């Protein structure tokens, strides 16, 4: 099933041309890895999907992005972001307790029932493989957790809102290999329920977890194909060069 349908997406920030005529589809219950060198437009592309670019005064876009057949411009941003969650590059806990971090989203959407909140927090933390490590100290500040735990907390926080799509923006860039493996495990499990878009600078990570892989270069979508295909027999020379580490 097609989750996102993107047509002729063109984005500028003031004078910078961030994305050029990108058209693609993102299917549900798959992990789409987005790779490419820095400044290739990966993150801009990701932040289109939950309209986070709208916060930038200089942002201009043309083309359409449809979520489940509906133009996202016609969806209320708060509702869209509820459906399309995001995990950022750095672990960014809010300055609240562990519990309050996970409960934040649903509380903002109006859930007050304590029992329901507690259940939801527990469920989300379990889904993010963090419950066992934090179940005895839910009221401590989230900043007391290690970097890897913080990032899984951020994943739990996103899951608690019960989104349909989760956007990962280089979620492991600040993590050690063991934490990275834990986050990757979580992602692979999550795709059963969610559609996942993963922006990563780590080509091997894309190969490990992605069903589909998209390669961006200077704002253009160079190639989008099954991950196996991209990593064994890419069409474009530039894709080949990038995944072999010839430039980047």
């Amino acid at each position, binding site marked *: 099933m097609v989750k996102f349908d993107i047509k002729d997406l063109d984005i500028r920030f003031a004078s910078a041309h961030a994305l050029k005529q990108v058209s693609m589809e993102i299917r549900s219950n798959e992990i789409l890895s987005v790779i490419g060198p820095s400044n290739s437009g990966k993150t801009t592309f990701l932040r289109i999907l939950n309209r986070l670019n709208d916060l930038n005064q200089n942002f201009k876009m043309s083309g359409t992005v449809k979520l489940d057949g509906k133009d996202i411009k016609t969806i209320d941003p708060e509702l869209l*972001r509820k459906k399309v969650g995001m995990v950022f590059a*750095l672990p*960014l806990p809010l*300055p609240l307790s562990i519990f309050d971090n996970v409960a*934040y989203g649903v509380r*903002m959407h109006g859930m007050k029932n304590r029992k329901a909140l507690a259940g939801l927090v527990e469920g989300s933390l379990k889904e993010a493989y963090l419950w066992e490590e934090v179940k005895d100290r839910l009221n401590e500040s989230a*900043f007391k957790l290690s970097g890897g735990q913080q990032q899984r907390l951020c994943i739990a926080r*996103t899951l608690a*809102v019960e989104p349909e799509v989760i956007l990962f923006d280089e979620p492991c860039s600040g993590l050690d290999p063991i934490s990275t493996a834990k986050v990757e495990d979580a992602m692979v499990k999550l795709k059963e329920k969610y559609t996942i878009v993963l922006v990563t600078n780590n080509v091997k990570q894309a190969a490990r977890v992605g069903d589909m892989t998209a390669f961006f270069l200077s704002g253009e979508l160079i190639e989008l194909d099954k991950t196996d295909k991209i990593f064994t027999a890419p069409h474009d020379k530039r894709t080949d060069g990038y995944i072999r580490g010839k430039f980047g």
Partner: protein
Amino acid sequence: MRDPYRTQRIAFLLLLLATLLIVIPVGMIVVIIVQKGLPAINWQFLLDMPRQGMRAGGIFPAIIGTIYLVSGAIIFALPIGLLAAIYLSEYSKDNLLTRLIKLAIVNLAGVPSVVYGLFGLALFVVFFKFGASILSGSLTLGIMILPVIITTSREALESVPYSFREVSLSLGASKWQTIRHIVLPNAIPGILTGTILGLGRAAGETAPILFTVAAFYLPRLPDSIFDQAMALPYHLYVISTQVPNVDEKIRYGTALVLLALVLFMNLVAIIIRYKFRKKKKW
């Protein structure tokens, strides 16, 4: 031959001297005022009406007047200043209007206090017909401290990392929810500090209250916000220059009370900031 170490030593000494020069006057002011004013301080001085043309008795109405004025100023200036700061830091786009507003705030901060006094006289006392009253004085002081409150509140709001806002929005919270639950709670120490510094300034100013509220001699407590009131800084001015033969003790005692009041407010600001900074979580 030039000895670079000697040059460095001289430079170091100069810097140290300049720094000490700042401390010395502050210390002297405090020492002299405490030394000369402390003998005057007792319960009678603090809680009694002035008597014999202010040559004896206490300064109670002036203390109360100053507290009224400062409270009035804050009741007026804090909500307006805070709302304006929220607008400027969170909502306004960078355009001509915003730039004009910011310019106006900077200029407002630079206006001499006596001009505020005159402005308050024209607007509140005469035009709005509030008369010389606590209301007029509070509003005038409020306008005077608005720039301080707006500027410090804006800085406090802007010091909350932008990423927190993005995270909150990305979880589907609205902009106002983000401000209310994430930005404001983390900006409160800065806002409070600015507010209390503004208060300290309001408590000590003479010129803005001169034409708008201050009574020369009013040995009773004001009975409404439309009443005149005595105030510490003006009272100090009066007994120091306008009334002959006031005991030095009384003058320095009044100065000491005013100084203590302002220092106390600053101390509160420092403690609040320190407590929150220790609690700061990122």
